[in-house]
């Protein structure tokens, strides 16, 4: 049996289902991220595990024990709150040492462990400050230190790095991963930063409107999103609507604005509407007249290691990303050919309710 098990947990606020039938098994020592847009129920799920939100239905088991209705102070979890929830009347040192005091750790050990935890989050010099004398990111790191110092069997992190700069965030991600590997802490982290979820998680749980839509390894979530929502939410995607022209075994020929494209799509019917999803980095930009579709560069964005192009063509605007390999980028208004290899196309049956707006997604 798994270490932490949520079975069909549901939270209802009046008529609103904040969380519906969430089932999730987390193995001991695993790092799982909950990823989803704002208001989809991530915090509520975490708070139910922590015991601060009553579960309307379903059960939670931790290490074989049913904790669905256990008191919050008997669960022994380390928690980073989305609002940090630091003790405002205690110094940074006392904040971090509070959990150790509650565990009745001897005073001498307490000092070493608090200092170690503060060192880990690069705050050793701030031990004597009060929370209101710290910046947002510093407070967040105190919250993190406070949770990890007690070495809990399960860490629940609610957007623990959202306020840090890119460099510090990377360092903290590394530390989190390191702690988890060394101590074997089981970690559930909430984030809406997909890059963060992908880079440190063993598995990613994608949530939408209170439900889990996919649980998978980061790579599979990215490459094999199970719903259109996920492929849109996770990374950028070009969505090309088309109609099935011919069916041949597991393959079909789909007409995209008159251009026939062969895709692997078992079980589709003639005349059915499909949406082909292609990640921008999987499009190749060739010279004019080459490739599968013609196009013209309308905008280009410099992203540092990459160039992002918007290409106008017969299917509307497509996004393409090419590595910045040092050669000169394409100019705006330059005609290009768009190409891709058949294996990179993901097929969704049906048509998207609304076409993605590349200009919005580029932001």
């Amino acid at each position: 049996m798994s270490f932490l098990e949520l079975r069909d947990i549901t939270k209802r606020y009046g008529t609103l289902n904040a969380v519906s039938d969430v089932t999730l098994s987390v193995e001991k020592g695993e790092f799982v991220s909950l990823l989803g847009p704002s208001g989809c129920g991530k915090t509520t799920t975490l708070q139910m595990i922590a015991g601060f939100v009553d579960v309307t239905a379903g059960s939670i088991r931790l290490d074989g024990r049913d904790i669905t209705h256990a008191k919050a102070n008997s669960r022994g979890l380390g928690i980073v709150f989305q609002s940090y929830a630091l003790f405002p009347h205690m110094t940074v040192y006392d904040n971090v040492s509070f959990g150790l005091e509650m565990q009745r750790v001897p005073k001498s050990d307490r000092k070493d462990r608090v200092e170690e935890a503060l060192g880990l989050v690069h705050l050793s010099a701030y031990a004597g400050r009060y929370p209101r004398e710290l910046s947002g990111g510093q407070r967040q790191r105190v919250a993190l230190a406070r949770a990890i110092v007690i070495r809990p069997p399960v860490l629940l992190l609610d957007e623990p790095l959202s306020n840090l700069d890119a460099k510090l965030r990377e360092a903290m991600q590394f530390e989190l991963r390191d702690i988890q590997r060394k101590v074997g802490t089981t970690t559930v982290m909430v984030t809406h930063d997909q890059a963060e979820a992908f880079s440190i998680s063993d598995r990613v749980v994608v949530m939408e409107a209170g439900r889990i839509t996919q649980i998978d390894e980061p790579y599979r979530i990215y490459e094999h999103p199970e719903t259109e929502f996920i492929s849109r939410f996770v990374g950028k995607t070009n969505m090309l609507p088309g109609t099935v022209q011919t069916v041949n075994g597991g393959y079909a020929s789909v007409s995209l604005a008159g251009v026939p494209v062969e895709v692997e799509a078992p079980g589709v019917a003639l005349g059915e509407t499909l949406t082909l999803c292609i990640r921008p980095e999987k499009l190749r930009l060739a010279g004019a007249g080459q490739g599968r579709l013609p196009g013209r560069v309308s905008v280009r964005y410099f992203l540092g290691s990459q160039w992002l192009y918007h290409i106008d063509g017969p299917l509307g605007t497509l996004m393409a990303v090419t590595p910045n390999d040092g050669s000169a980028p394409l100019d705006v208004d330059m005609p290009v050919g768009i190409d891709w290899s058949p294996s990179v196309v993901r097929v969704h049956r049906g048509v998207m309710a609304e076409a993605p707006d590349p200009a919005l997604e580029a932001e």
Partner: protein
Amino acid sequence: MEATGPGARRSTPLILSAPAALLFASLILTPLLLTALLSFNEFEHATGRTHGFTVGHYLAVLTDEYYLEIFLRTFRVAALATAICVIVGVPEAYILSRMRNPWRSVFLLVVLAPLLVSVVVRAFGWSMLLGPEGPINAALVALGIGRVRMLYTEWTVIVALVHVMLPFMIIPVWTSLQKLDPAVEQAALSFGASRATAIVRVVAPQILPGILSGSLIVFGLSASAFAIPGLLGGRRLKMVATVVYDQYLSDLNWPMGATVAVLLLAANLVVMLTYHRVVEGHYRRRLG
């Protein structure tokens, strides 16, 4: 551009605060000043005239055991009433803040309802309840314990003061509880703290400012309370405010009454400022 010059800007705060300052000066400072001046006047018992200048009244009050006892009693009663208000009011405010609507609104109303009834009416209520023929004594007699004198004792005054003052403790504490992030208490619980530990170590220090202001209000009002000690303490149990009243209206010795009033004000100020300093110094840096 001239209107926004430095000169004009400097006078703006003065002009803006003038109405309030004027009101304050005419309604509070002037009577205070007149009282202070009066306390230095000589008093002729035979004619009742007041004139001249003397510090005799102050010397008389400060060296008289009788007055000293009354001052001590007043501050003892006020301090005990304040302490009981803290002990009763703070948990009450906490419980109130943890209630859910509609119960919360109902009980908040119950707590505040006494404010709607005149203190005099409430004092008479207490005296009927505790009087020799009141229901409590009737019950004691029926139980064979016999009559107990409850009126005109210090404890009766204290209990009645607590009854009157409790809302003034609950309201500021309730306000500071409202400002608390519930997640902070949850954080304490998540570290395995018991509910009691969380309240003592995490909630109480944060609502200290509310407790402080509540205590100051309750202490100040109790120390200068008139109706409750007057009606429930009677002739026997004098407090400073009732002495002032007696001096003014029975002895017609206005300068003496003014002296006692000024001394009460000064003593009250000293006690409250000291208390404020001690407690506030404690949390100033932490809570800002």
